[in-house]
Structures are given as structure tokens and as C-alpha cells.
């Protein structure tokens, strides 16, 4: 049992290596690079087995690990039993790194979420990328992604956690850029890696501060030393950690990579948005929650960031035409909810929402994948009336949207309610400064309404109204966009159906502590938003209900021009600087070197006049020298 965390991490890790090497090694004998050929199909089948089995085994291990504590963490019963062990220590000459992998009640819950969603995504991908010649590497990267996230979840040492944290950045880069033939996808992948890495630098420094103050990088030691640390240390450390959290969990101001990350295949979006990557940021705050609670300025910053992020992203989601981008902005908004819950002092409700969100967002993305697969386009303006053609998907996606809006009895209702209760309570208990608490609560309520609006809009525009003529199949860059006119293959529908169950029912797994007033308010607000969109849609089903935003529509659609701002403030200056450095290097630094070489040659050229082979000159020089010496000797003697 103590080796289960290690095994859970190692299995997908080894699967990643096997998946990268084995199908290709065996592949080599056949005619290479033959998409859809027999050899390619066989390699894909092998890769699918290599990918699915270890992930399934990891899921079993994770469930086993979570079996004991169960949902104790979400119910607020802090059990502190640790399952795991330390596999040695790495000396560094200073604070050592201990290779500890362990599971407690928090990581137990997260581990189950990660492995189950990853398993669903792996199975779904078999159908989604059936004819893709690069499916083996794709599934191997998903395995690596799963392994890295599990490393974050089970790590008992902050630097070990950081390793998993960064490898996730790499996997997101590789997977978002899966269809790298298109330069746009490649750019999105680079952006995802760089933006998150910018935050990760802060995160690493935050780890340094905590590790140095505690004299150890072990999570348990750090948390034990929190009461002894000075407020300045704690605020510095948590603020720096927050940079990493903002990067990974796509919070303002580092959220810009997430909507672009939609360039990747849809199952990847499900994986990134539900189980891995973005969940890591919320998880790490919950993991180090005592340190954050002791640093109140950090919580205020977190509250403001969350408040701005949740409302802004929800408004942006309301104006998008791309179905996946709607869901992407919705993720930013929902993650801001969780961050708000953490700022309000409730890590249990934040993790609860993280889990339910993981279930329903994975469901929504996988359904969106089916829809996109079917319609051959990401754009909602090219969809409509799909409920008759895709009945299963329609039902599942309805559950997903209901959970997203927070309508009972779907899981999102319960978790969102507990978050709102926490934010409501933050005003009273004074964990935050009043202004921050007010802003947070107001934005959270407004966001509930906007969430209702954008979810309804996406639902209506996808499944209702006139059926649009099927768009032409998009030939490139992906090979997954195949129009068949039927429901998706079973490998895609089974994960969808299985995910619909927790998305609907997960709320009942936790002891309900509902506040009737808050619950009623949020449901009414969500229905108000939904109703407004419905009214606009009824007036003209063909037109986009986003027009209710009026003049704000364009800024919302552009996500308030943040991307353009960063391009103007950061990207272009760096590029100008880079060119400046190159020309400086050539003309100034190297110029000095070449110049000294040239001047040496010039000097030697001057000296050469004296060495021109003219004997008379030499003799005259010699005589002149003798004369000078004689005169000098006579004068000074």
C-alpha cells in the first residue's frame, strides 16, 4: 500500500516511454509514414493498449488510496493519515530534496479525479484520432501528462512537485501543438508554455523562500514551520507562489494562453481543463493552505484577481462564436470561482468545486468534441438543431450545462453553493479586507447570472434552431474532423455517458450543508441570465443572442484586448531588444575585438616601414643609436 503513490505515478510514465518507442520500433519494417495503412492502424492499436491499460491501473490504485479517507477532506474532517514513503534524499549542499511520494485525504480525492478523467480521455481519443498517424505519440504524451499531474498530487516535497508541475507545461505544449502543420497551432503551443513558465519562475522562487525559511522542502515540514515564519516571509512566498498558480490555473493576468490552447485536439482540452494543468494551481493553494491563511495580503490579492477573472471571463464567454472558446473562457471563470473560495478561506469548497467542475467540464468538452466531429467546425454559427442527430450527446451536454449553471440537482449546484456560502461568510468573518470581500461577493453573484446566460446561449445555438447545412469537412490540419452524419463511435460515447453520471450526481456524495437563501439567490440569478438569452433567442433564433451585450460585444469577444496589450508591451519590445543585442554584439562587442585586431595590424604596418630591407637605413639607424648612447653617456656621466 505504501508504494501505491509511486506505482500510480510510474505506470503512466513508463507507458509514455513505451508508447513513444515501441509502436515505432515495430513500425519500422513496414512502409514508413503511410497514414491509414495497415501498419499505421496496427501501430495505433498497439499504442492504444499501451496508453489505456496503465492509466486504468493507475486509476485503480488511486481509488484504492482514496478509499480509506473517502470524501473526508470535502466534508471538512481533517484526517491526517499519510500513505507513502520516502525513496531517498538528494543532497544539494544546502537544503536537501527528499523524494517523497504520499497520499493524504486531499491528494486521494484529486488522484481519483485525475486518473478517471485521464482514462476517459484516453478511451475517447482512440475514436477521435482513429486515423491520425501520430496517434502513438499523442497518447504517450497524454500518459506523460497524467503521470506529471499525479506527481504533483502525490508529491511530498515541493521540488518534486515542481518537477511534475513543469513537465505538465511541456505536455501541454506538445499536445496543443499536436497539429503542428498549422503555424497558428504551433504559436498557441509556444504561448501556453511561455506564459505558464513565466509564472513558474515566480513559483520556483516561492518554493525557495518557503524551503529556506523552513530548512526543508518537505510539505509537512514547511507546514509545521508556518507558525514560526515572519509575516513578510509568508507574504513574499505566497505572492510568488500565486504567480505560478495564476499561470497554471489561467488566472488574470496570465490567463491568455488558455483560450488559445483550444488549438489542440478537443480531448486534450478536456484533459487540460478538467483534470490536469489548471487543477494544479488550485490544488497547490489547498495543499499549502495554512501558509496562505497566515498571509492576509495575499488572500486579498487572490480575491481581487478572482473577482476580475470570473466576471471578465464569463463576459468573454458570452461573446465567443467558437464553441470551444466558450468553454475555455468558462473554465477561466470557474477556476476564478475556486480561487475566490480559497481567498474566502474555504479550501474544502474550492476543492469540491474543482472535483465537480472536473467532471462536468470534461463532459462538456468531450461532448463538444462529438459536436465538432459531427459538424466539421468549431463555430456555433455553423451548428444548430443538432439535438435530433445527436440525442445522446444532447442529453449529456444538457447535464453538463446544467451543472455549469449551478442548477439543482446537478453537481455544480452543490459546489457552487458552498463557494457562495464561503464568500458570503468572508464578509462576516473578516478573513479578507471588506472591500475585497464585497467585490468578490458581488462579482460572484453577477457571474452566476452571466454563466447562466452563456451556457444557455451555447446550448441553444448548438442543439436548437434550424439545422445548418453540413459544413465542408475541414481537410487540414487535423484528420479528426470527419463528417459521418451519425452519432460518434462507441469509444467516444461511452466515456461521455460515464462522465455524465458524476456530473449529475457527485453533489450528493458530500454531506450537504445548503444555505437556502444563498441557494435560491443563485438559482434565480442563473435563471434570469438564461431567461434573458432565451428571450433574445426567441425573437430571432438565427441571430446571435450575444447581441444583448450591445456595444460591449466586441470588447468581450476580444477578451478586453489583453492579448494585444501584451503583444505591444512585452512581445514586441523583447523582439526589438533581441535585434538590438544582435547588432550590438556585432558592432560594439565584437567590433572592439576586431578593432583591436585591426589596430594591431595597423601598428605593425607602421613598424614595417622600419623593416623594409634597406641596408643603408639599418646602418644609419644603428649609427644614430650609437651616437645617442654616446651623447647620453657623456652628458649624464
Amino acid at each position, binding site marked *: 500500500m505504501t508504494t501505491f503513490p509511486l506505482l500510480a505515478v510510474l505506470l503512466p510514465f513508463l507507458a509514455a516511454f513505451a508508447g513513444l518507442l515501441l509502436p515505432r520500433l515495430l513500425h519500422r519494417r513496414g512502409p514508413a509514414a503511410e497514414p491509414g495503412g495497415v501498419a499505421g492502424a496496427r501501430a495505433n492499436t498497439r499504442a492504444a493498449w499501451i496508453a489505456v491499460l496503465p492509466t486504468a491501473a493507475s486509476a485503480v490504485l488511486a481509488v484504492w488510496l482514496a478509499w480509506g479517507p473517502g470524501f473526508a477532506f470535502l466534508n471538512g474532517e481533517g484526517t491526517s493519515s499519510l500513505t507513502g514513503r520516502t525513496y531517498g534524499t538528494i543532497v*544539494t549542499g544546502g537544503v536537501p530534496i527528499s523524494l517523497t511520494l504520499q497520499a493524504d485525504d486531499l491528494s486521494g480525492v484529486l488522484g481519483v479525479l485525475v486518473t478517471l478523467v485521464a482514462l476517459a480521455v484516453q478511451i475517447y481519443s482512440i475514436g477521435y484520432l482513429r486515423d491520425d498517424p501520430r496517434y502513438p505519440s499523442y497518447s504517450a504524451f497524454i500518459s506523460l501528462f497524467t503521470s506529471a499531474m499525479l506527481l504533483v498530487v502525490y508529491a511530498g516535497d515541493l521540488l518534486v512537485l515542481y518537477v511534475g508541475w513543469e513537465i505538465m507545461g511541456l505536455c501541454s505544449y506538445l499536445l496543443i501543438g499536436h497539429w503542428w502543420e498549422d503555424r497558428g497551432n504551433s504559436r498557441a503551443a509556444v504561448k501556453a508554455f511561455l506564459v505558464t513558465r513565466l509564472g513558474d519562475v515566480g513559483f520556483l522562487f516561492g518554493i525557495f523562500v518557503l524551503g529556506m525559511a523552513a530548512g526543508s522542502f518537505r510539505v509537512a515540514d514547511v507546514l509545521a514551520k508556518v507558525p514560526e515564519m515572519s509575516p513578510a516571509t509568508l507574504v513574499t512566498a505566497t505572492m510568488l507562489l500565486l504567480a505560478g498558480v495564476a499561470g497554471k490555473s489561467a488566472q488574470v493576468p496570465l490567463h491568455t494562453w488558455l483560450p488559445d490552447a483550444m488549438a489542440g485536439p478537443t480531448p486534450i482540452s478536456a484533459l487540460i481543463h478538467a483534470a490536469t494543468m489548471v487543477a494544479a494551481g488550485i490544488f497547490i493553494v489547498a495543499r499549502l493552505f495554512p501558509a496562505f491563511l497566515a498571509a492576509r495580503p495575499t488572500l486579498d490579492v487572490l480575491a481581487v484577481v478572482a473577482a476580475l477573472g470570473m466576471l471578465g471571463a464569463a463576459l468573454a464567454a458570452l461573446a465567443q462564436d467558437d464553441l470551444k472558446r466558450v468553454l475555455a473562457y468558462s473554465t477561466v471563470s470557474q477556476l476564478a470561482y475556486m480561487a475566490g473560495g480559497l481567498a474566502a478561506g474555504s479550501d474544502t469548497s474550492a476543492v469540491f468545486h474543482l472535483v465537480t467542475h472536473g467532471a462536468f467540464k470534461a463532459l462538456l468538452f468531450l461532448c463538444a468534441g462529438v459536436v465538432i466531429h459531427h459538424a466539421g467546425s468549431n463555430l456555433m454559427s455553423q451548428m444548430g438543431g443538432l439535438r435530433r442527430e445527436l440525442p445522446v450527446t444532447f442529453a449529456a451536454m444538457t447535464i453538463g450545462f446544467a451543472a455549469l449553471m449551478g442548477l439543482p440537482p446537478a453537481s455544480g449546484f452543490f459546489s457552487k453553493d458552498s463557494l457562495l456560502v464561503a464568500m458570503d461568510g468572508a464578509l462576516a468573518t473578516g478573513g479578507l479586507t471588506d472591500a475585497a470581500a464585497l467585490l468578490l461577493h458581488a462579482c460572484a453573484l453577477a457571474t452566476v447570472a452571466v454563466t447562466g446566460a452563456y451556457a444557455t446561449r451555447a446550448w441553444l445555438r448548438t442543439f436548437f434552431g434550424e439545422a445548418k447545412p453540413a459544413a465542408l469537412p475541414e481537410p487540414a490540419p487535423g484528420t479528426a474532423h470527419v463528417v459521418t452524419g451519425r452519432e460518434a463511435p462507441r469509444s467516444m460515447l461511452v466515456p461521455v455517458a460515464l462522465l455524465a453520471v458524476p456530473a449529475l450526481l457527485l453533489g450528493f456524495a458530500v454531506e450537504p450543508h445548503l444555505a437556502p437563501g444563498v441557494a435560491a439567490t443563485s438559482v434565480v440569478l442563473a435563471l434570469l441570465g438564461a431567461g434573458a438569452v432565451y428571450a433574445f433567442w426567441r425573437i430571432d433564433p438565427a441571430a446571435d443572442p450575444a447581441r444583448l451585450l450591445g456595444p460591449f460585444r466586441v470588447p468581450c469577444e476580444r477578451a478586453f484586448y489583453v492579448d494585444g496589450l501584451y503583444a505591444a508591451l512585452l512581445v514586441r519590445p523583447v523582439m526589438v531588444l533581441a*535585434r538590438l543585442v*544582435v547588432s550590438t554584439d556585432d558592432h560594439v562587442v565584437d567590433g572592439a575585438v576586431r578593432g583591436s585586431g585591426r589596430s594591431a595590424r595597423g601598428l605593425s604596418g607602421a613598424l614595417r616601414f622600419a623593416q623594409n630591407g634597406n641596408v643603408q637605413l639599418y646602418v644609419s639607424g644603428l649609427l644614430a643609436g650609437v651616437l645617442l648612447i654616446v651623447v647620453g653617456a657623456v652628458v649624464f656621466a
Partner: protein
Amino acid sequence: MMGWLPVALLAVPLVGALLLLLAPHALRPRLRAYGLVLSGVTLALAVLMVAVFDYAGAARPQFEVDQPWIAGLGLRFHLGVDGISLPLVALTALLTFLCFVYLCWGRERAGEQLMRARPRALVFTLLVLEVGMIGTFLALDLLLFFVFFEVVLIPMYFLIAIWGGEGRGAASAKFILYTLLGSVVMLLGLLLVWAQTGTLDIEALAAAHGAGMARSVQILAFVAIGVGLAVKTPMWPLHTWLPDAHTEAPTVGSVLLAGVLLKMGTYGFARIAIPILPDGAAAVAPWLGALAVVGIVYGALACLAQRDLKRMIAYSSVGHMGFVLLGFATLTPVGVNGALFANVAHGLITGLLFFLAGAVKDRYHTADMPSLGGGMLATLPRLGSLLTFASIASLGLPGLAGFWGEMLALFGAFQPANVLPRPLFLTYMVIGGLGAVLTAAYFLVMLSRVTHGRPQRPARPAARVLQEVGGPPPAVPDDVAGPPPAVLDDVGRPPGDVRTHELLAWTPLVVLILLFGLWPGLLLSLTTPAVLTLLGVAS
């Protein structure tokens, strides 16, 4: 005990090189096998050394040989290895052997361009180079160190000047003049130490920790020795010989230059400058740190705007060596450990990168990125994947070797030695961290340009450098004249993906990058005791 081992490490390549002079005709038909066997034997000796090394005593030199050499001057032939030099000796033997594998494996195919032109001279040059490199890491006498340090220059000069690219003349002249000039300054520093203490024995000097030298003398000596080492490292702003030398050098030259020669500079800091002159180090360290972080950011920015692949990798060395120097400048065990780790990691990773760049150049006959045109993952998937792997290792991804050194160097800067100003080093740490982001940026932009995108007929090398990063991909005019350069290689076949000799030469590097990345303790447990001793923390 086992004192013959370091001598044998030097003797095998040296005797091998001399035999080439004595019996040229007998060996000519078997040159490939000859080079492989000799470097293989040297590698086997290095592996034997790694195997029988007493890891409990990694802090002290082992396998010591101490014989009088020039009695009149008090020079001694003093060799030995400890935890600091052992990895570098092994790295040198490994990289040299892999270079021979790259050149000599197989028949009539591999490393064509190089082994066709004056093959005997090439094998001779590489063997002499190996003697100098291994000797530098083994020497425990200041002048002996200097002798080996200089021995390396001559074969490297010929390697660039004879087998190099178009601009090899200027590049090789710049290389040798620049580094010789640095060496002269270093020699003055070494002589100053000798004059003050009366001994050249590195072990004794390091144990004395600067006793017997006034602070001002130490500073002067540190600056003099430091300048010599910094030229070799190279430290900004003394780096401009490097891009030219790398760009013009043949593949094996680049690999050894980046993989081993640069390490000799940084090794000098760990072996000589810091332990022998602690007060001088403490006084100069803030400046060293400043130049190091300037190098990190400057190198990264320079890479961002490069269009030549080899030149870009060369500039990336400036940035990576900046991390190494920053680690040394902190004067803490963590920082020095990080520097030594980054040293070895850089040797493996950049060695691999230069191998790959050479392979790209072999196939496309250019390393100009706009001319390569993108889509390498489609045309040469294995080469493209390896390039991706090496780039990601080089940008310091945790789990691969490049990360730990940089992380520890930054951690050292977070809490530098007590004599150093902490706020200054915190600033360095932040700048270094941002430099790491820029490092990621230029590698990913490079990958995006070269490996991503649709394979297209490469455009004419036009005057657009950074267009593709921001805007839409520029359309390729349909009227590009002439066949694309990537269609045929010089034997008249389409460019193949990774070949056997390449795979053999690269696989060990890939495996080691993974191994040190996943289990950094392998290297850190070796260097830590030695580092603690040299900093005087545990003696």
C-alpha cells in the same frame, strides 16, 4: 593504488597519435577502426575509473601520481581525480568516443566530408585534443594544468582551420588569438600565486585556503586567472570568438568545443580560482555574478534574433555558462554544486544539439533557419523529435539534466555566502529566472520555425528574420527558382532520417540526459563532498 590509471588515460591517446606519425602507411587502411579502438580504450579506462572510484572519499583526490618533472623549477607531474573532476573526465572520454563513432562507424557512408579530407590528420588531431582535455581535468599542479590547457588550443585551431566551413580562416585565427591572449593573462596570475606561496601544488594551495597571500594579491591573482578562464568559458563580454568558432567548426569540433572545452574554463574556477584565492573570490564575486546574469539575458536575446541554427546554439552556450558562473559567484555549496551540475549537463545537451545541427546541415546544406523552411517533423520525423528533445532539455525542463544545475545556481543566489551582498544576488536571481523564460522562448521559437509547419520548398534566404513569430506565415512565392536544397544529398539520394552511426553516437547522450535529469543525486552526491572541502566548509 591504481596510480597508473590517470597516466594510462593520457598515454593511450598520446601513444596512439604518435603511432600515426611513425607508421602512417601501415595504419592508413584501418584508420576508422584505429580511431574507434583507441578512443574506445580510453573510454573503457574512464569507465574503469568511475567503477573503482572510492565514493566515500570523493572529497580527496584519488589515483594520485606525484613525480618530479622539472626539478630545477620545482614542477611536478601531479595527477589525480576527485568528485569534481571525475564526471568531467568521463564526459570527455565519452564525447570523444562518440565523435569517433560519428565519424568512423560503418563503411563509406558515415561522416563523409570529414573522413575524406586528410583522415589521418583528423584522427591525429582528435587524439591529441583528447590528451589535452583529459590532462586539464587530471592535473593537480598549476603549471601542468596550464600546459594541458594550452595543448588543447592547437588541435582545436587546426580542426577549425582545416576542416571548417567557409569562413574558417578568420574564425580559427580569432579563436586562437583570443584564447591565447586570455591564457597569457592567466599565466601571469598563476605565476603571481607561485611567487607568493612558493608552491604550484593545487592540493596544498587549496588546503591552505589562501593563507600566505595578502587580500590585494589575491584579488589581483583572481582577476588575472579569472580573465583567462572567462575567455574560455566564455563570459560576457569576452564571448565573441565563440559564435564564429562554433559556426565554422566541423560537427565534431563544435561538439568537443561546447561539450568539453568550455568546461575547462569553468572547471578552472572550481579547481583553482575559488579554493586557492578565497578572499579574491569574495571580492570579485559580485562582479562575476553581474557579468554572469548579463550573459544569461544577453545570450538569450541574441539567440532570439539569430537565423543560423549553429550560431543560435553557440549563443545559447553563453547563456548557459552564465548560469554556471552565477553558481560559482554565490560561493555557496549549493551554488557551486549547481554550477558543476550545469557544467556536465551542458556538455551532454549542447553536445547533442551540435550533433543534431551538424546532421541538419549535412542534409539541407545550410543551417539558415528561414531556408530550412519548417516541417522537419514531417520530412525527417526522428531527427525533428530528437531536436525537440534536446531543445527541451536545454531550456531546463525538470526531469531532464538541464534543470537541476540552473535551479541550484538560482537557489545559491537566493542565499549567497555571508560575505556577499544578499540584495544584489537576489536581483541576479530574478534576472536569471527571467533569462530562463527567454531561454525557453528562443528554443520554442526555433522549434516552431524548423520542426513545425508544412514542409515547403524552402524560400530563398530573404531578409526576413523575425516575421514568422508575430504575423501570419509569409507566403512562399511560387516562382522560387531552382530545386530546393533539401532534395538530394551529395551522394544523390534523398536525405534520410537518422542513420545508424548517428543513432549510435546520440543514444548515450539521450540516455544520460534522462538519467541525470531523473536522478540528479548521482552527480550531486559525487560533487557535494568535494565542494564542501574546496569551500572550506567541511575540512
